[in-house]
C-alpha cells in the first residue's frame, strides 16, 4: 500500500500560468478530498468526491479553481491564471466511506 500519492511534490509557476495538481488515492478508497494549507488560513476544505462524483465543492474559490475525478485512480485540481495568493500546500486525502481520511504528502505550489 503506497498510500495517497500526490504529484508533483513542488511546483513553481509564474503569475497567470496554469497549475495542475494530481492525486492518486489509495486503491479501493471511494472518497477523495482536497484541502489547502497556508500559514495564515490553516487547513481549509476545498472539495470532495465520492465514487468519482462531486459531492461538495463549497470550499473551492468560484473562479479559476476546478477539480475533476475522471476515474477511480486519480483526481486533479486545476488552477487557472495562478496568483501569488494561491501559494499553499495542497493536500489530497482518500477514505473508504468513513471519517478516517488518509492524507498524501501534499503539493507545495509557489506562484511567483
Amino acid at each position, binding site marked *: 500500500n503506497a498510500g*495517497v500519492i*500526490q504529484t508533483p511534490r513542488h511546483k513553481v509557476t509564474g503569475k497567470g500560468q496554469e497549475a495542475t495538481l494530481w492525486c492518486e488515492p489509495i486503491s479501493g478508497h471511494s*472518497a477523495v*478530498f482536497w*484541502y489547502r494549507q497556508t500559514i495564515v488560513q*490553516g*487547513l481549509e*476544505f476545498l472539495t*470532495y468526491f465520492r465514487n468519482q462524483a462531486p*459531492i*461538495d465543492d463549497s*470550499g473551492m474559490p468560484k473562479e479559476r479553481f476546478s477539480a475533476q475525478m475522471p476515474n477511480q485512480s486519480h483526481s486533479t485540481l486545476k488552477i487557472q491564471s495562478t496568483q501569488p495568493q494561491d501559494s499553499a500546500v495542497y*493536500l489530497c*486525502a482518500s*477514505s473508504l*466511506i*468513513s*471519517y*478516517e*481520511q*488518509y*492524507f*498524501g*504528502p*501534499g503539493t507545495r505550489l509557489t506562484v511567483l
Partner: protein
Amino acid sequence: TQTVSQSDAHVTVFEGDSVELRCNYSYGGSIYLSWYIQHHGHGLQFLLKYYSGNPVVQGVNGFEAEFSKSDSSFHLRKASVHWSDSAVYFCAVSANTGNYKYVFGAGTRLKVIA
C-alpha cells in the same frame, strides 16, 4: 456550521513528561472528532477518532483523547512523550451528516526537548 479551537499554538515539554493538547469545538448536532499529526514536510497522519461510546479513546503511539460533551472538548493526552512526538497536532471535526469533510483547528506545535 462547526468550528474548532486549539487554544495553544505552541507547547514545549521535556522528554518523558506528560502532555495535554486542548481542543474545543462548537456544533449543535452529532459530531465526529479526530486528531491528526503532521511532521515537518509531510502530510497528516491519523491518530485517533471518536464518535460515540467510551469517551476515552486510544490511538497510535500511546496517545489517547477524552471527549466531553459538557465542555465541548476533545483533548489529546500522552503520559510520556518522546522527542519523535515533536510535530504539529490538528484537531478535526465533522458534522455527522454523511458529508465527511473536516473542519480543522489551527494546530498546536509540540516541541519535545530531549
